[in-house]
């Protein structure tokens, strides 16, 4: 139902009718659509279209209408108000019960809201409204009176609310020509009917909907219109049935519950009318009627002349059911109305474009299925029969006829084991083998051109010209597979070129009688392998056939296809995929070959009693045989050698020579592909892939390929492909004769130590100028370790197996700092260097340059470890005189200097000593202010002589949990008495003397 416009198929939505003032229709329509819930609109171009209202009934109903208005339909003569009256009555008729017969007129205005919106550009409002009011009053008064009378008479029983409208064609006074007018009326009626049916079905009033439909079709069935375009009427009628069928089908499920009624009441619909199938069937039947009349109309119109191109510019007008010609004047488009002649021509052209045979079959099929599900077998069978009739009507060529006939002839005949009951088959009785054979022979007679095909329905005779045999193609989806099934099986899946292979061709037919094949041609995709199998019993025919010279011809003793028996032919061939063409009598039948393994899903395979045998003699081959054979490439006779020179060093440009040397094949259009692959499977890039691609990220890269082009090969440089990517390289190899060789050098650079796999493959043709030949490929691979050459820790060490010459070692700073470095070098191979200094900052690097194998020097950089240097937080110093004198006191002080920004808690203690008498605090906890010094002073009097150990002092920082014990080395020398130092005396005396002097 989705193909129909929303406003028609949706459940109750208000409907507004717009008449006149076409320029504002778009505005109003979009506004009404945007309302919640949306309001749909029907737009009419002008008031004259209201003349669809039956004038007579209007006059009957509105006796107070001024006599002046009765002269012309649509009231054009009564001034500006008259069209509005027409509009009002159109609306009234549409929304009020208005029986056509006029015998039972009742108004049931329940739940109906009628709003007439008057849109005018000019004045006349007073007159207008007066007219409308008068008319409405008169109408309602009249109707009210009638209802009253009828209610009193109790002459009607149903109080159902019905939404109805009435259209009748009266008068022809408007601008629209008569043919188009009927089309327009019917289109509008269709739309209204559609809407009504939707509404009724939505509210579950199925009976009303069906009654409504019957009335609708009965009204218009007789309105056939002009005989030239009567096909439009049938098409319209068919569409009514189709639409109603679809509406019925999509409406709620309980609708399908058919109330059983043996009721005699004629107005009630019969059971069948509750089923969509009924409407589908009739839709198909009317569509068929349309086809017949269209064909007749087309045949009549041919002598009028060819349909001119103007039909193409005819478009559907903005208004429902109208057509107009689109004229382009520069940028502006003008809609020009059509004359009836033009319209008929247009309708015929459109009708010619759309052939409905498929629609008819589709409708009948739906009907057939629906009736079958209803268990209405007879009606379903009738639909099926009509379907077949339509299919047969579609037969336009002898080829179609033969195809259908052969398919029919090949259908399996149910065995006679069980008694066929009359229920299971049509009036002609069960299918028999003799009937099938008759069909078979008839088809072949037509195919040979011996008899003519006479189609009674179309009065056409189809004859096959025996000089041009029919060509039937059977592919995997063709229904004619039952007629002829061709299988091929290669006995080997793979074969070397030139080596022979066996092929079995199996043919099978389900045709009822034997078919003798004149000639069987097997075609491969390599045409030189094609061959023909002739029938040994008909040598003359085989000779006549056009056989190209040099074509292989085989002769089979008998080429007879018996019913359901495999015809097996095994031949020796050399090649690839193929299809086979069979010449069977005078019909060419091309059957796409299939593999026996694909037989599983074949329908006839499932009839076990029919296929007792397998297509090939070898049962294994029946399931594994392939329809294609792979021809391997010949063995390469070219050597590809990779010169390996041990491990590669990081930073080194590793040179790898590749040599191509021909051993038996000449090399043409050779291509050398080089691939670098990480042996661990990872990429060659660094893991930081989000970084922009740069050479630094590559662990290993192919830098260059340098090749030596032989001098005698003067190929244009453009022929030499050379593509180099970091992990891939492609280079063309010049043509080489047998025995020649060619080499190139790959330059690979390792940026990180990494083992890689190098794959080199050479593809070439061993013969020049034959692109159909298969390329020969040679593959070689080599694993190469990439190693770090020099390791630097405290020592720099050559880890490689190659002697390295150290050129220089340097330490560089990355930031300016007051750092001193010392380097020393001991040997060129084994290098020891030391670094000393106050501090080493981070980011320093040791740079080292070495040279390997005489190639360019390589710099290895090594980052030195970071060293962090801090100032001590606390500095403790002991002060005492270098010597003392027995009995003389001296000062022993402990200075604690706090270098931090924090208050430091310090515990100290001093141990007693036998050698000294000590005065001062023994042990305590003190606080040292930030950036300040605390001094502990002790007065000591030595009691002994000689070197004496000073009392031991222990200072502990609480914050750092660090303590300081004065070492045993803090020794003071005690003299027995104050020593006399001459030197000093002398110096003193001299100084004194100087002073004295």
């Amino acid at each position: 139902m989705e193909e129909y416009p929303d406003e028609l198929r949706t459940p109750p939505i208000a409907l507004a009718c717009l008449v006149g003032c076409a320029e504002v229709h778009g505005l109003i329509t979009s506004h009404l659509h945007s309302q919640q819930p949306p309001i749909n609109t029907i737009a009419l171009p002008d008031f004259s279209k209201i003349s669809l209202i039956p004038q007579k009934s209007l006059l009957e109903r509105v006796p107070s209408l001024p006599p002046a208005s009765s002269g012309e339909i649509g009231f054009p003569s009564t001034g500006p108000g008259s069209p509005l009256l027409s509009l009002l009555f159109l609306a009234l008729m549409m929304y009020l019960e208005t029986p056509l017969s006029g015998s039972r007129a009742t108004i049931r205005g329940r739940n109906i809201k009628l709003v007439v919106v008057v849109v005018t550009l000019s004045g006349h409002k007073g007159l207008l409204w007066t007219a409308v009011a008068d008319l409405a009053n008169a109408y309602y008064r009249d109707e009210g009176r009638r209802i009253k009378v009828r209610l009193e008479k109790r002459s009607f029983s149903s109080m159902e609310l019905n939404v109805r409208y009435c259209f009748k064609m009266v008068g022809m006074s408007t601008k629209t020509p008569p043919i188009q007018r009927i089309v327009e009326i019917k289109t509008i009626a269709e739309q209204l009917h559609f809407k009504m049916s939707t509404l009724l079905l939505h509210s579950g009033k199925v009976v009303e909907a069906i009654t409504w439909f019957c009335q609708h079709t009965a009204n218009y069935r007789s309105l056939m219109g002009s005989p030239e375009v009567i096909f439009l009427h049938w098409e319209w009628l068919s569409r009514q049935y189709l639409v109603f069928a679809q509406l019925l089908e999509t409406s709620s499920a309980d609708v399908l519950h058919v109330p059983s009624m043996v009721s005699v009441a004629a107005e009630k619909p019969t059971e069948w009318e509750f089923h969509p199938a009924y409407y589908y069937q009739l839709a198909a039947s009317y569509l068929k009627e349309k086809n017949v009349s269209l064909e007749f109309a087309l045949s009549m119109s041919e002598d009028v002349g060819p349909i001119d191109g103007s039909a193409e510019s005819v478009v559907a007008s903005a208004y429902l059911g109208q057509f107009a010609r689109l004229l382009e004047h520069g940028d502006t488009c003008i809609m020009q109305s059509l004359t009836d002649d033009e319209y008929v021509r247009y309708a015929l052209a459109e009708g010619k474009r759309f052939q409905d045979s498929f629609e008819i079959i589709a409708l009948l099929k739906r009907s057939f299925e629906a009736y079958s599900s209803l268990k209405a077998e007879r009606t379903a069978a009738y639909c099926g029969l009509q379907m077949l009739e339509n299919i047969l009507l579609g037969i336009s060529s002898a080829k179609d006829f033969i195809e259908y006939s052969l398919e029919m002839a090949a259908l399996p005949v149910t065995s006679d084991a069980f008694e066929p009951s009359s229920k299971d088959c049509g009036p002609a009785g069960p299918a028999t083998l003799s009937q099938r054979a008759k069909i078979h022979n008839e088809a072949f007679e037509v195919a040979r051109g011996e008899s003519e095909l006479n189609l009674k329905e179309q009065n056409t005779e189809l004859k096959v010209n025996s000089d041009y045999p029919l060509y039937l193609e059977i592919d995997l989806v063709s229904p004619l597979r039952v007629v002829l099934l061709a299988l091929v099986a290669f006995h080997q899946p793979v074969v070397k070129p030139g080596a022979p292979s066996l092929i079995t061709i199996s043919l099978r037919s389900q045709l009822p009688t034997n078919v003798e094949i004149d000639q069987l041609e097997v075609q491969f995709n390599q045409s030189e392998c094609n061959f023909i199998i002739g029938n040994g019993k008909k040598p003359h025919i085989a000779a006549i056939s056009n056989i190209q010279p040099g074509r292989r011809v085989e002769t089979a003793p008998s080429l007879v296809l018996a019913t359901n028996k495999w015809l097996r032919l095994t031949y020796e061939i050399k090649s690839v995929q193929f299809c086979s063409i069979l010449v069977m009598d005078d019909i060419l039948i091309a059957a796409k070959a299939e593999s026996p393994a694909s037989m599983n899903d074949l329908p006839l395979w499932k009839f076990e009693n029919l296929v007792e045998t397998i297509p090939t003699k070898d049962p294994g081959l029946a399931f594994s045989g392939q329809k294609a054979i792979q021809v391997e490439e010949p063995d390469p006779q070219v050597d590809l050698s990779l010169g390996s020179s041990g491990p590669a060093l990081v930073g080194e440009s590793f040179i790898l020579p590749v040599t191509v040397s021909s051993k038996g094949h000449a090399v043409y259009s050779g291509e050398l592909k080089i691939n670098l692959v990480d042996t661990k499977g990872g990429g060659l890039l660094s893991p930081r892939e989000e970084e922009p691609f740069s050479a630094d990220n590559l662990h290993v890269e192919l830098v260059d390929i340098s090749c030596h082009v032989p001098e005698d090969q003067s190929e244009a440089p453009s022929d030499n492909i050379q593509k180099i990517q970091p992990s891939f390289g492609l280079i063309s190899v010049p043509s080489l004769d047998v025995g020649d060789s060619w080499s190139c050098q790959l330059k690979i650079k390792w940026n990180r130590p990494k083992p890689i796999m190098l794959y080199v493959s050479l593809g070439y043709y061993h013969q020049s100028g034959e692109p159909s030949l298969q390329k020969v490929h040679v593959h070689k691979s080599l694993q190469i370790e990439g190693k770090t050459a020099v390791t630097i820790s405290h020592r720099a060490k050559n880890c490689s197996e190659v002697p390295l010459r150290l050129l220089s070692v340097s330490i560089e700073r990355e930031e300016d700092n007051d750092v001193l470095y010392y380097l020393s070098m001991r040997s060129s191979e084994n290098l020891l260097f030391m670094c000393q200094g106050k501090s080493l900052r981070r980011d320093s690097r040791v740079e080292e340059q070495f040279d390997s194998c005489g190639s360019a020097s390589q710099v290895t950089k090594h980052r030195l470890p970071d060293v962090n240097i801090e100032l001590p937080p606390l500095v403790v110093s002991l002060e005492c005189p270098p010597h003392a004198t027995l009995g003389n006191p001296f000062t022993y002080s402990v200075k604690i200097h706090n270098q931090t920004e924090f208050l430091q808690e310090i515990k100290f203690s001093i141990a007693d000593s036998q050698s000294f008498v000590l005065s001062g605090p023994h042990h305590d906890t003190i606080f040292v202010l930030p950036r300040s010094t605390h001094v502990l002073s002790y007065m000591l009097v030595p009691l002994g002589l000689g070197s004496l150990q000073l009392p031991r002092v222990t200072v502990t920082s609480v914050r750092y949990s660090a303590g300081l014990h004065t070492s045993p080395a803090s020794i003071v020398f005690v003299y027995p008495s104050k020593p006399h130092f001459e030197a000093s005396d002398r110096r003193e005396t001299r100084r004194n003397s100087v002073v004295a002097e």
Partner: protein
Amino acid sequence: MEFSLWPCGRWKGNGSCGIKGKFEGEGMWRIPSSSSVLGDMIVCVAVVGHQNNPLYIQSFTEADDALKLHHIVHCSLDVVDERVNNPKKSGPTLNETFLGLLYPTENYKVYGYLTNTKVKFILVTTDLDVRDADVRNFFRRFHAAYVDAVSNPFHIPALSISFALDFLDMYLDSQDDHKL
């Protein structure tokens, strides 16, 4: 009202036999034995046995339509089956033999009648405004004609009625006014 089963002797041979009937009164029924009659008329009648085996089928139109009408009659048996299998719940029409309108199709209306022995009468008419009462009347008379035909002592039940009708023809021929 006049209705006559009017086979004219050589039923199988010359094919000019037919049922001729006429309803007089409100509506006019014309059952012509040949075409070229304008207006609405009965185009086909059929008698179908209780096993849905055809006993008698006769169409009164141009030869082209005959097969189509036979199909319509055949299809209508589906409707009859459905009516019989799903009887109406309320039972006043328990013994109702007239099945009423079976279905409208294209330009035809198909009516049915079911005797107590499950023999079906099918009527196809092109009159779309036919009244039920007229059809009912026609069927009653047709039923009477059928009963007369099968009352023939030589009639074998459930066999094609044509044989019986031959005797019926003779019987009818002996009557003066061909009235049933």
